[in-house]
Every structure is written in C-alpha cells, then in structure tokens.
C-alpha cells in the first residue's frame, strides 16, 4: 500500500519532470508528512506544504508576480443531500440529490482572491474555488454539475464546510520570497481516511504557467480503527463478541452487586 503510494508519487514526479522543458518554470513541492496517522484522541492537526518556483533561462525575465492555487482533495465517495419539507404538519425528508464520487475532504488555498488571479473563464476551467470545483451529481437522467447557487449544491458545500471538511482560504498561501512559498493544510478530527491528492497550480498574469501534484495518506490506527474494520468486515464475529460482552457485563454486575 505504502509502496504503491510512493511509486505513484514518483511516477507523478517523473511525469512532471518530463513535462518541464516545454515550460519555463517548474514547481518543487513537498508536504511535511506523507503519512498522517490518526489516533483515537486525535482532535485535528495541520500539515505543511512548502515549495519553490524554479526558473530557468527560458523564463521571461519580466515575469515575477506569481499566483499559486493549492487544491487538496480527499478520498471520493457517493453522498446524498436531502431536503426536509413540511408535510402533514411535520418535517420530513422529501427531495434528495445524489453526489457522485465527490471528495470527502476538499480544500482550496491561494495567495490572493481567485478573481484577482484569473478571469472567470480561467477560474472555471481550472476549477479555482469551491464554486468552480466539479461536483458531479445525478440530475434526473443526467450526470452533471450545476450552478453554484443551486440549493442542493450550496447546502452540500455549506454542510461540509461546517464540519471543516470543505474549505477555501484565499490568503492561506504565503510567499516567503518571490519564489518560495508555504501553506498549511488543516485536518479536522473527522478527516476521512485514505489517499489525498494535492494539486499545485502556478499562475502568472492570469494564465496557468505550470502545475504539479503530490499526495499524502491518512491512516487511522489503534483500537477504534480495529473495531470499525472488524464491524464492517466480520459482522457476525463482531456481533457475537458484542453480545458476549453484554452478557459478561450483566453477569459481572449481578455478582458485584449481589446482596446476599
């Protein structure tokens, strides 16, 4: 697993290196930790991504003002957003919208507001900002994304944001020098486990200059994770053990508190 992940990362690095000569800049990035272990008492944390923009002799000397957008997307899953409506005097779930293979965690960071970085057209094409990220949905017979102010889409983004799982920060990327940058990737307590892709895009004068990718992995360790895995994979054994535990606790209680 670990090996495969690092091979994938190496592959990406090689690919990005191969793509370099056509462009004048290249990005060199790294995250502070490629494997985050989440323990039961984990209450959130932060990864640091840092990197630099390497120029070569082909770089136009006039180019200096770089903009950077970092997109972190976690493991994908299908989700359903439901809306409650008042029927017969009570509030019940009526409408729903299915979101297909959307990231469990999604964060977009940049050094300044997206509208200052690029034109609306480029923002949409490069998926800059939560409003422009592609969130595939089943709309009737079609699979598509909808306009950002669609009630289901905006509710979905808002609810995920309330849990800290979707976020957008347009001042999170800091340029330490004109070419050296860093940003923090906050991970709330509820982060889903799995592989996270980090895409770094470099803009200059409103156009994409180059991009690169890296990845990290979140694994949960400890007793709780063991319990969760067992419950999912060996339902019968898990049920038996839980039932046995219940009977033991009841029996212990009847001994401890026996009056005669």
């Amino acid at each position, binding site marked *: 697993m670990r090996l495969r992940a690092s091979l994938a990362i190496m592959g990406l690095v090689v690919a990005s290196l191969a793509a370099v000569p056509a462009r004048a800049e290249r990005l060199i990035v790294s995250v502070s930790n490629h494997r985050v272990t989440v323990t*039961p008492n984990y209450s959130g944390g932060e990864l640091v991504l840092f990197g630099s923009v390497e120029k070569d002799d082909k770089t136009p000397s006039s180019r200096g003002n770089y903009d950077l957008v970092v997109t972190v997307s976690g493991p994908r899953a299908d989700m*359903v957003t439901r809306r409650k409506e008042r029927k017969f005097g009570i509030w019940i779930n009526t409408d729903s919208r299915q979101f297909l293979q959307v990231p469990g965690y999604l964060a977009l960071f940049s050094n300044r507001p997206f509208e200052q970085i690029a034109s609306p057209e480029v923002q949409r094409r490069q998926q800059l900002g939560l409003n422009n990220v592609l969130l595939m949905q089943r709309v009737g017979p079609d699979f598509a994304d909808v306009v950002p102010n669609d009630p289901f889409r905006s509710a979905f983004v808002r609810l995920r944001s309330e849990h800290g799982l979707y976020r957008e920060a347009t001042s999170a990327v800091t340029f330490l020098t004109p070419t050296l940058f860093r940003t923090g990737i906050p991970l709330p307590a509820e982060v889903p486990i799995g592989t996270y892709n980090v895409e770094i895009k470099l803009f200059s004068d409103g156009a994409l200059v180059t991009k690169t990718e890296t990845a990290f992995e979140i694994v949960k360790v400890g007793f709780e994770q063991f*319990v969760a895995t067992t419950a999912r994979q060996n339902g019968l054994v898990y049920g038996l053990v839980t039932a046995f535990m219940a*009977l033991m606790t009841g029996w212990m209680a009847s001994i401890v508190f026996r009056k005669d």
Partner: protein
Amino acid sequence: MQLYLPIADIPVNVFLILAMGAAVGFVSGMFGIGGGFLMTPLLIFVGIAPAVAVASVASHIAASSFSGAISYWRRRAIDPLLAAVLLVGGTIGTALGVWTFTFLRSLGQLDLMIALSYVILLTTVGGLMFWEGLRAMLRSRRGGPVTLRKPGSHGWIHGLPLKLRFKRSKIYLSVIPVVVVGLVIGFIGAVMGIGGGFILVPLMIYVLRVPTSTVIGTSMVLTLVTMVFATMLHAVTNHLVDAVLALILMIGGVTGAQFGARAGQKIRGEHLRLLLGLLVLAVGIRFAVELVIRPQDLFSIRETGGAPP
C-alpha cells in the same frame, strides 16, 4: 476525557456517556424496566446518528436485562415455559424489525420513522400509565381499595384455542396471544432500540393476566433474548453496533440500576407508575416537538457508497 467512537464516528466525552448510562440505569432500576426508551433518545440528542443509537442500545439493554434476569432466576420469579412461548414470537418479531429497519434506512426515512414511532408509542403508553396512576392514587387517597385485577373476569383472549398450562405463573392460557405479544415487542424493540419492558409488563398484566410475581422476571428473559438477537442482526446486516459506546453505557447502566432499585423500594407503587407515565409522556412530547418545529437546517448529507479501493 474525549474518546472517539469507532462506528458512530464522532468524538464524545466518556464521562457524559457514563453519566447518561448511570442516570438511565437509575431510572430503569427504580421502575424495573430496561430504559431503552430513554437511552436511545438521549444518545440521539447528544448527536449520535439514530440508526447507530438504536443498534448500540440493543446490546446495552441485553446487559442490564441479563443482570436482572439472573437475580430473578435466583428468586424463582421466572416462568420458563411462558418465556419460551413469548420468545417464539419475539424472535420472529425481531427479525422482521431489523429487516424493516434496513428497508427504511435505504429509503432515507429511518430517522423520521424512529421519531414518529416514539411519538405515537410513548405518548399513548405514557398517557395511559399516567392516567391509570393518577386514578389509583386518587382512589387510595379516598380510602377505596386498589384493585388492578378483577379476579374471575375473562376476556375473549381466554376463549382462544391451543391452551397451555403455565405452571410457575399458575395460568391456563392460549399460546396465540402470548406469541403475538412477543412478536410485537420484538418488532418495536428492533426498530426503536428499546427493550419494550415498559409496554410488555402492562401487556402481560392486563392482557395475559400473568401474576405480578413472575411478570418482571419473565419479561426480562424475553428482553434479554430479543436484544441479544437484535444486536447480532444489526451487527451482521447494518454494521451499526458501536461496541465502545455500548460498553460505556453498560458500565454506567448496571451501576445506576443498583441505586435505582433501592430508591424504587421507598416509593409507593401507584406513585411509581405515575412518575413513569410522566417520564414516558415527556420523552414522547419531546420527539413530537422536534418533528413539528422547523429544523435548524433543512438539509442533511449522508454517505451512500464508499470510495473505490
């Protein structure tokens, strides 16, 4: 102290859950009931998903009814034959209940059904108990005799065929109503995450005319087996039983129950019924209010499928 619940998928304060277990245990010891109808709502109010609460409370009730059943067994206050016949219905009812639970969950209406059944069941049973307790109290205050059971009065239930003699309880009764009672309790137990003791005991006293000496012990055996069965089925079909949560609840529950039982002995029977009726009614009304007022957020998200491996 924060602890992460593996299945409920949220961090909780261990002492809060322990205290909840102890409080519900106290009440259950006092009234001689499992307390599931209090525990499940409390867990839901704390923020645990209704489905996980229902499934986990099943194992908690199994623990508390087992310790109760042991002590009733020692006092020979359990009718094994009656328990066995009840269990026939109880097992079928539980299986049907878990199946219904899975079905409603796939429709996205499980939370609504749990809330609705709580409202209907608790307000009805609570109202009846409260009314009955109030009347008994007024009667005893006026100095009249407290008669719960008119000897010699036989309803249509006693005219049914397939009669069986239940020796320990000293009753001669058709197995049909017994199986039906077991089925109903098993079903609502699995769907609502309650042992059903607070419904089963009145049903056994008023409908089946089981003498009070064997009622509670026998009902505990039924609760124990249906809840063990429900735990197993919920674990196998829905993977929703949170063992860590259940263990904390059990420890708090069995401890609280001991003190509750002592407190219960100091209170008169009709007062106890009145209090229990009020409590049941209050929980029912709390659910009703929840359904009627506009929710803070009209939208909710649920994950339906995992990421491809």
